[in-house]
């Protein structure tokens, strides 16, 4: 009797997301748990990277899986993977939440509070670690300050390491759109992250019109 759940767990471990979803919809709680463990991290991180707020990320993650329980039958395997479907749902919830809470001007207080928390890692010297933490914080701020349509592309392609095809599936747009948005987003990020003095130097050096077309 005690080996029941373990046996069930090993069985569900081998199953694909699609199979787990089917089992879950037929009332298998263990399938839900397995699917949740497999996919919650990506959904949570996506929501966190999009919103910059842990509470929104938690709410969205919960909403996504509740939606899956309620309306999981709308998933169509022909249109993409379960992971992409979940991220698509998460995206809708995040955007709705940001719209409702007028959080589109980003940088939640949580992160500002977190700024002071600095944890040194064992393999880096403190100064390197500090620089690393500073870089991460700057990049995080820059990403959060992007307009939503650019931010989501950066989060998916750069932070979630998804291909253009997967990103296009999630966002429901063409691959070319993803590419162009990413290009624009990276340019915006560079302009935000580039130190002010270097821009001033570059301008004083007259580099604006010096691009070659050879």
């Amino acid at each position, binding site marked *: 009797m005690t080996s029941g759940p373990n046996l069930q767990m090993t069985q569900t471990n081998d199953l694909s997301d699609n199979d787990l979803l089917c089992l879950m919809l037929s*009332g298998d*709680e263990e399938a*839900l*748990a397995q699917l*949740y*463990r497999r996919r*919650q*991290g990506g*959904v*949570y*991180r996506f929501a*966190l*990277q999009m919103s910059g707020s842990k509470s929104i*990320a*938690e709410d969205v*993650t*919960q*909403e996504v*899986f*509740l939606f899956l*329980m*309620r309306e999981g039958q709308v998933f169509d395997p022909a249109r993409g993977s379960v992971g992409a479907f979940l991220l698509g749902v998460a995206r*809708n*919830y995040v955007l*709705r939440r940001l719209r*409702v809470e007028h959080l589109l001007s980003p940088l939640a207080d949580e992160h500002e509070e977190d700024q002071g928390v600095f944890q040194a890692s064992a393999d880096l010297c403190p100064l390197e670690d500090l620089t*690393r933490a500073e*870089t*991460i914080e*700057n*990049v*995080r701020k820059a*990403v959060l300050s992007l307009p939503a349509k650019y931010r989501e592309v*950066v989060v998916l392609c*750069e*932070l*979630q*390491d998804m291909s253009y095809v997967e990103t296009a599936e999630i966002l429901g747009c063409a691959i070319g759109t993803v590419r162009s948005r*990413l*290009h624009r987003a*990276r340019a915006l*990020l*560079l302009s935000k*992250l*580039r130190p002010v003095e270097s821009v001033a130097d570059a301008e004083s050096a007259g*580099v604006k019109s*010096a*691009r*070659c*077309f*050879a």
Partner: protein
Amino acid sequence: MNCQKFEQVVGDLARGRMMEADVRDGALAHSEECGLCAARLRDEGTLTRGLQLLAADMETLSAPPEMELKLREAFRQRQVVVPLATRSARPRYWWAAVAAVLLIAMTAAAMWWRSATPQQQLAREETPKQVDAPKQDQVPNRPSEIAPKEAPLSADNFEPRRQLQTPKPTRRSTTPRQVPETQLANHVSNEIATDFMPLGDLNPAMIQDGGQIVRVRLGRSALIRFGLPVNMDRYNENMKADVLVGSDGLAHAIRFVQ
């Protein structure tokens, strides 16, 4: 390769994405020749490393462990609730169907009665005029009894009855189409509104303690998200909407107003 072409591939080059070998070699060769493009590639590389650091920093983050327990609990409750809800919903549908049939039958009977006995109604409306008349002149209730008396009435006598009877029907008939219930509920008579659509899971308990409807303006593109048709010619225009804000300060439902 020139700077323009380099610009198109520099992102993928810095990110180490798969690309054609000759394009990659051409881009690298160009960056060695052109100082600005080399600087651009360096910038892109730095940005990529920053993003990778951020991704690695957040790699271990995940939802709190108690969420799984909550979801399991919700799943179990759902498994129990759903069959009960469907079982109890059936009789409710039956009752609704029976009520609808009764309503239709009553409406039809009323209409038939109206059209069949105009004389009786005329007589009924004329009774106030005859307040001072003797009792024996009062109109009898049965249509069969009033029919002979009504026969000699002229068109002049008939006109006031129509004026008295028609106000409600004429108001309805002058409108170009039937007025939806939501429009009647609307305070502004010339506005048409959709039904309230929930934003997320609308829990009635959340709005039980009160709330308010806030008029907002938003792009017509928002209609798409709710599965409503959008006129592409006016896609970029704004439209009005009413947002139902609960006592918890969150928006729970929305309706679009035209």
